[in-house]
């Protein structure tokens, strides 16, 4: 990946996706739409037949697990979303201009991932038709006691915050680039620009900074280090979920997943729109190094849990940990993380080992590992409860096709959302190319 002479990034670059649409975009869109439709059909089938089309069952004498892939995927998506917004907030808050080109991508990832998480709540429920009426009615009381009510609150809050955040920064870009954007979309742009005046830029910059601060502060306290793990760690009867370590664990998983997602988005758009002078090797390498740090944290926290569970633990935590270690899915997840870490350390020591493609593969690996770990986490908790008398009840859980198709379906939907936004707004901030620092030398081999 040695680079030739350095092109200067300019505003024309970032609006290219809006002006030109290649056949690859249509092919990609068509494929994603097809997958999404297949899943929507499967979901329709589930609505009609009930959750019996999943392979979930009752824990206890039922011999199954009542939460499975749907909840695992839900926390995975929320993790990506929370991680994404933390990344973007960090870029803004700490003025990490090097990463400014990926800031908005991370935000867009957050929005679409949150939407998928929300969708999973609906898909998971036995009576989604009652969602609004039932929740609203008792909300002032349930919010005092039910971690699930906290989750719904936080996801809504986060959706609003992220949308505000993106909305605010988009206004500036849209205003500046307006003349060069297609006329056909001008009604949309006028809506975005309602009441815009140049004077607001400074105010908005300050607001965005405060929002970023809020996000950074809230993330570990409340969001992915808080209410999401509390959903599980506050249930004392499931030793697999127990413990205060779940907060940091969830947060590390969120950050690794989100970084991987951002690397994948950067890589794909770089190929599609010749953005190699924007998503330079230097940027991607930096992201890869961060991925290494958080992956290490992830593995470290797993180690803590396993050792604490195994060494002279009470009977049940030991049972869970032994089962977890013996599970091939867990072995695979940790194996992937080990390979990823090996690559990241190698490229940190020896730059020639780095390549964008390798980082891309590592990112996919991490996403698969975190998703498997999340689903397994949900499963293990319910499969090895404190009340051990049910152990002899035969049972197993392999997600059904309907459940599995939801993974493909939500990934496809997420891609669709991103592809549509790509055609409407610049996915790289104008600031990132305007103020592009020239001494951003390429790291070349």
């Amino acid at each position, binding site marked *: 990946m040695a680079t030739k002479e350095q092109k200067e990034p300019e505003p024309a670059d970032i609006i290219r996706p809006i002006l030109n649409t290649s056949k690859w975009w249509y092919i990609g869109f068509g494929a994603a739409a*097809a*997958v999404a439709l297949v*899943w929507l*059909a*499967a979901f329709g089938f589930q609505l009609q037949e*009930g*959750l*019996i*089309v*999943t*392979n*979930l*069952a*009752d*824990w*206890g*004498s*039922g011999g*199954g697990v*009542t939460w499975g892939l749907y909840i695992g995927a839900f926390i995975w998506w929320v993790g990506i979303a929370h991680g994404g917004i933390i990344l973007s907030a960090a870029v803004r808050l700490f003025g990490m201009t090097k990463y400014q080109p990926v800031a908005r991508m991370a935000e867009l990832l957050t929005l679409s991932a949150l939407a998928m998480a929300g969708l999973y709540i609906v898909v*998971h*429920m*036995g*009576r*989604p038709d009652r*969602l609004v009426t*039932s*929740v609203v*009615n*008792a909300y*002032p*009381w*349930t919010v005092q*006691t*039910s*971690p*699930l009510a906290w989750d*719904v609150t936080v996801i809504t809050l986060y959706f609003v915050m992220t949308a505000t955040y993106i909305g605010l920064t988009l206004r500036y870009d849209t205003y500046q680039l307006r003349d060069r954007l297609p006329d056909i979309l001008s009604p949309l742009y006028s809506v975005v620009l309602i009441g815009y005046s140049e004077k607001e830029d400074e105010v908005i910059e300050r607001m965005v900074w405060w929002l970023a601060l809020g996000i950074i502060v809230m993330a570990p306290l409340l969001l992915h280090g808080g209410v999401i793990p509390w959903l599980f760690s506050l*249930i*004392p*009867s499931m030793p697999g979920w127990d413990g205060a370590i779940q907060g940091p664990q969830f947060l590390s998983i969120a950050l690794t997943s989100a970084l991987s997602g951002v690397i994948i988005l950067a890589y794909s758009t770089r190929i599609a729109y010749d953005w190699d002078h924007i998503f330079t090797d230097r940027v991607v390498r930096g992201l890869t190094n961060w991925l290494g740090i958080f992956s290490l944290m992830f593995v470290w926290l797993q180690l803590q849990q396993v050792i604490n569970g195994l060494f002279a633990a009470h*009977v049940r935590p030991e049972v869970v940990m032994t089962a977890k270690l013996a599970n091939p899915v867990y072995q695979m997840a940790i194996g992937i993380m080990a390979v990823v870490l090996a690559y990241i350390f190698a490229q940190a020591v020896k730059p020639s080992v780095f390549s964008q493609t390798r980082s891309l593969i590592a990112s996919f690996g991490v996403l698969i590992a975190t998703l498997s770990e999340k689903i397994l986490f949900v499963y293990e908790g*319910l499969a090895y*409860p*404190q*009340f*051990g*008398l*049910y*152990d*002899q*009840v*035969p049972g*197993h859980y392999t997600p*059904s*096709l*309907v459940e*599995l*198709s939801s993974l*493909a379906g939500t990934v496809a939907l997420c891609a669709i959302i991103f592809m549509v936004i790509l055609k409407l707004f610049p996915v790289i901030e104008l600031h990132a190319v305007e103020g592009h620092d020239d001494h951003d030398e390429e790291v070349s081999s």
Partner: protein
Amino acid sequence: MSADDTNDESKHPYETEDSFHPLGAEWEDQMRDELEDTEFDADLGMEMARDAQRLVAGELSEEEFYAEYHEDIEDEFEVDERPVFDDIDDVDLDAAEDESMLESLTDVDFENEDTSRREMMKKMGAGAAFLGYGAYATYDQDDEQIPENVSGIRPADKDEREHRWGMVIDLERCDGCLSCVTGCINENGTSTGANWMYVFTYDDEDTDQQNFLVRPCQHCSNAPCAKVCPVRARHVRSKDGLVLTDYEICIGCRYCQVACPYGVNYFQWGEPDVPMSDLENLEMRPEEVRSLDEEERHKKLSEANDHVYDERGRWTDSRPPKGVMGKCTMCPSRQDGHTDNPKGTVACQDACDEAGMSAIHFGDLDDPESRPNTYLERRQEVEESPKEKSEKFEDAEDYEQPPAPHPVSQLPTFKLLEDLNTEPNVTYIGNQPGANATETPEERPVPYESLSNDWGVKVVAERKEHLDYGARANGGLEEGEGEA
């Protein structure tokens, strides 16, 4: 109780030297400043506020709080014009929720009309009002002021509730005949594998004999399942402590099942095996049933021998509909007295009695004369008197240990997973299964699969296989679905 109180009573964490308020010393100082600006005693205000915090924490009763300050307040304000606590009920607590505490307090109908409310509020000082009554209102609202269509998660206090239903189950009498399982299925029309009543046959390390554990829902007084429900479908009926699911509200998130330590919940994954039309019920929509006045409702439900609604007109009894959670209900339609079966009985107990075992004893645990309490007492007496014991049990050799030197009960009793603080309302007589107890399905005296019931529903011990079959049977579309 005042500030110069020197004894070492347990101190509330807020009650430190520096600051008692959760918002911290700064906030407290600000409040004090505001109080000092008024012409009234700032120390008294702050002290009241401090105790109000303790009131919230439950360390102080309302009466104590009131009594403590009545005289002080009279001196200070000439007359105690604070709202008496009955008046507080008039405050719209919903409004209080959105922090308009001051405003809602001004709605209180004070007895003394000489002083306008506004003036009164001024007198009390903004600080004391916020800290004191603001805190009081939060406390109050949690416990009582929830509207009728939202249920609570705790039984009412002992003197306010009518009953506390529960069971004493004598495991030493159980022989694993599973009559109770059938009895429950007959009563509730549950689907295959949803064994609301389940009986374990298990081996324990320290005994050779076969052990049984009869496991209905424990109807916990501190029920984690009710706490976590995001819509309060799962709730604890305050008048009698029954833990029920409102089938009209439940969204099927299954968090209750996740939070219950005992694994007693059974979700309705597909269509129920027993159609609604076969259940004994009043042919009315739940909202119509609820709209009737109490007497009318009771009359209608009794005429229909209804087994679906409870006395509040909520659909909480019999098997749940598709997509909704079910579990042992302790038969609320019986406890509300509108079925042909007497109040104070449950179907599993009836079946157990009929089988001649009488291991299950259901009744009001608050009532010393109730069946479970008298049974437990009697069993304890028998256990204490070796003579009676040997008369009662044929095999006297098994009980050769000398009688206890003092009359302490030797009868082993336990509650399941008591240290999880769920306050279960089922007490077992017998030995608690040890940490390494293992279920031995192959040794069941009567297999679940051999049970027959009134509905012709198939019975199985474990449900997973059955549900998997259902998934496959419904899998038409899945065949054609490509993995993307």
